[in-house]
């Protein structure tokens, strides 16, 4: 069934207008400008350079050479990214690519019609994937729904014809399942959760830990060490008083007050991460969840300790699913309650909370398994 059968043009226009101001839309200026195809006479905006210019798509825009752009978008595992401007640009690009994946998910679920967004998406995607450095970035870091989107907007043949390296990805795009009208509502519920996540500081703190540090590959940030220490060892008095530890505990324990405070927030984010993704997973129960799994492949993979290198999932991070989250921490983070002595109260809800958390982990494991299958990921050890 075509979405136009159940989605009026007025409603679609209203949705698109609302999505344009959604809190997760990319805000970085550099890539935002790059997305908008510029006529050759358009001068550079605010002095930012554009990948279009770098590839000759906008000759009047002063920009870096293709070589410079490739250097900026290099795989961080080959050379750490320390320059703040480069990191901002990479983050902006990541947000843009994630947003495009989200739009593919919206199309796949009938939340918007292809007719309503085709031109804009075609131009954006073409501009991005025609830029060699961006194309390589996408191949390096893996944004699986982009290939599906390329096929949907009619760009696949052009890309495959021009670049043989893209053919395997484009050929692997699965057939789309028939569209059910109710999926638009499922997707809307997912969007509402997603918008909430973007404004959840605890969740953001945890997701920062999940993201592979680009500037110091191979070294655990102090916050991660602090969080892992906090999760394993639960001194009741920290939690009861929210007091902070003194400086420099042994390895694996909080290193200082700031780390402890951030770790406490990230621990709360961990619990919300599991709960939120499990809820999203349940929203789409009974439907083909391949697209959702592909969209969430990166964060859920990182949760299990894997970071994406194209179609490889390389274990480079901690496996948070295997992290021994002390039940007492779970209790505290979920209810704000501390028992004295911990867990010994006669009516402790620890078993129920632990079971709920474990059920969430089970959903995430299902999600990760489908994400691997959906994107053809190969798990590898370093």
């Amino acid at each position, binding site marked *: 069934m075509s979405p136009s059968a*159940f989605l009026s043009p007025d409603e679609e226009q209203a*949705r698109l207008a*609302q999505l344009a101001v959604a809190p997760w839309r990319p805000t970085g200026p550099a890539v935002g400008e790059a997305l908008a195809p510029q006529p050759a006479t358009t001068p550079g905006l605010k002095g930012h350079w554009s990948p279009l210019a770098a590839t000759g798509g906008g000759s009047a825009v002063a920009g870096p050479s293709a070589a410079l752009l490739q250097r900026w978008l290099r795989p961080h595992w080959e050379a750490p990214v320390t320059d703040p401007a480069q990191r901002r640009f990479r983050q902006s690009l990541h947000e843009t690519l994630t947003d495009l994946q989200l739009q593919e998910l919206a199309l796949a679920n009938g939340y918007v019609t292809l007719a309503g967004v085709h031109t804009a998406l075609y131009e954006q995607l073409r501009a991005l994937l025609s830029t060699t450095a961006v194309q390589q970035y996408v191949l390096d870091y893996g944004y699986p729904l982009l290939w599906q989107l390329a096929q949907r907007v009619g760009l696949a043949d052009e890309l495959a014809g021009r670049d043989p390296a893209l053919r395997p990805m484009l050929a692997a795009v699965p057939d789309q399942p028939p569209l059910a*009208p109710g999926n638009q509502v499922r997707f*809307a519920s997912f969007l509402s959760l997603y918008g*909430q996540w973007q404004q959840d500081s605890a969740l953001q703190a945890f997701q920062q830990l999940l993201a592979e540090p680009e500037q110091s590959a191979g070294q655990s940030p102090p916050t991660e060490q602090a969080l892992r220490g906090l999760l394993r060892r639960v001194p009741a008095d920290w939690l009861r008083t929210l007091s902070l530890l003194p400086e420099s505990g042994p390895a694996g324990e909080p290193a200082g007050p700031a780390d402890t405070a951030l770790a406490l927030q990230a621990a709360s984010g961990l619990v919300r991460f599991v709960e939120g993704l499990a809820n999203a997973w*349940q929203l789409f129960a009974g439907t083909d969840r391949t697209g959702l799994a592909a969209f969430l492949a990166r964060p859920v993979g990182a949760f299990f300790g894997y970071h994406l290198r194209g179609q490889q999932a390389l274990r480079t991070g901690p496996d948070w699913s295997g992290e021994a989250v002390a039940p007492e921490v779970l209790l505290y*983070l979920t209810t704000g309650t501390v028992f004295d002595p911990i867990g010994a109260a006669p009516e402790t809800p620890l078993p129920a909370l632990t079971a709920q958390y474990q059920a969430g982990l089970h959903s995430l494991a299902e999600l990760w398994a489908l994400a691997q299958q959906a994107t053809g990921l190969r798990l590898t050890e370093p």
Partner: protein
Amino acid sequence: MSLPTRDFLDRTADHWAYIVRREQPAPNLAVFLHGYTGDYLGTWGRLPHMLYEEADAHPPLADWDYVFLGYRTGAVECCLDLARRLATELAKAHAGAAPYRGAYARFALLGHSLGTLGIRQLLCASVLHTPPTLLEQLHSITLFGTPVNGSPLARFGQWVFPVSDALRPASPQLRMLKAWTDSSYQPRRWPAPRVLLGLEDQVVGHKFADLVNWAGDEPARLESLGHSAMVKPTGWDCTVVDYLVQALSPLPVPAAR
């Protein structure tokens, strides 16, 4: 696959979604309001798409349209803000003003957690009643996981928004709301709120229901559910759907003399 019998209007940035009969709007509107750090659709799990897909096959749900209201928790300071948000929508829905497709005659209010305090505030703040006959137009009131006496969580650091004050046990805002409710209920009356508490609810608990009575409430019901799970249906045969059906069922006709 047949065409859906309902339209779904979604306004992400406005935290608002509306499920309306396609051919002709229903005469009644059920209004949902989420809780602290919840969101307008996600809080209710599968309920929105279940209603979209199958409400018309499940009497009495077919006689109702549905609106899911939301807000950014950090943007509200007190229960009055929530009540005004609710009142604004009810006024539009009563008048049939855009984006509503019909003028609704009857309303059912359903809230979760903090959202239930917004509903309580609306009931007693008559200055917000547009139309003035609002209370007479209320068909039912259902409060899921209502903080009868706040939440023990509210004193902890992770509850960072100003409206957390309303959720602190025995907080001034909560005491004021309760006194306001007690004094407003006597002259005005509204349908007895149906209160559902969860035996597994670690957020607002359930034991205060034995100690704190809000004017007009039905005796609290206790189900073996957690705070979040109590508003997320697992299918058509589940507690939240049972309560929804009760909330939307026709009222018993008074016996003739």
